[in-house]
């Protein structure tokens, strides 16, 4: 951690808060993957990690590296933009696949 000596105190405090918040929010969203009962409820839960958890950790990384290099470093925004755009597309195709599988097996589509 010899690089972290050069980081000012406010930047490391903000980074610490954002890191713990992002990781905790992601853990809460993934715990929903265990707790919820049907597939159509479970598909909603990890999106908490993909939006707010990823946003917090990406913000923490941006603030830390900007304070470390003493210039604004914004290339982590690529990850945030890409995850935010691609997650709804993926989950929409997946839910459509689950609906077609359920109707193909002549089950009721909403209750598993």
């Amino acid at each position, binding site marked *: *951690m010899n*690089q*972290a*000596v050069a*980081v000012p*105190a406010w930047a*490391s*405090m903000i*980074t*610490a*808060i954002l*890191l*713990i918040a*992002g*990781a*905790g929010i*992601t*853990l809460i*969203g*993934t*715990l929903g*993957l*265990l707790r919820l009962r049907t*597939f159509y409820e*479970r*598909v909603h839960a*990890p999106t908490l*990690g*993909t939006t707010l*958890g*990823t946003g917090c*950790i*990406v913000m*923490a*990384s941006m603030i*830390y*590296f900007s304070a*470390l290099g003493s210039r604004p470093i914004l*290339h*982590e925004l*690529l*990850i945030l933009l*890409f*995850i935010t755009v*691609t*997650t709804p*597309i*993926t*989950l929409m*195709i*997946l839910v*459509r*696949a*689950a609906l*077609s*599988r359920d109707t193909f097996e002549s089950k009721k589509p909403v209750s*598993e």
Partner: protein
Amino acid sequence: MNTVLTWSITTAQILLVLAMACAAFRILWGPRAQDRVVGFDSLYLNAMLLLLTFGIRLGSSIYFEAALIIALLGFVGTTALAKFLLRGEVIE
């Protein structure tokens, strides 16, 4: 103050590993195939966030590029799995 940063990075990594364990449970014991795909999606996302925290811990930007590649290829993998579940083949 840097001990605060070190301990918060360690705590965040432990929380992310617990989240990865939850996603791995859903991959292994998912009742149907689409549950496993949702678990896989959550697993690669948590691995990407874990790589970002490793990058903050070591102060290098190499981990950022690995995280970006995981984000790109994980999207392709999950979409291919969902298309396979939808049609029975990936490329029509």
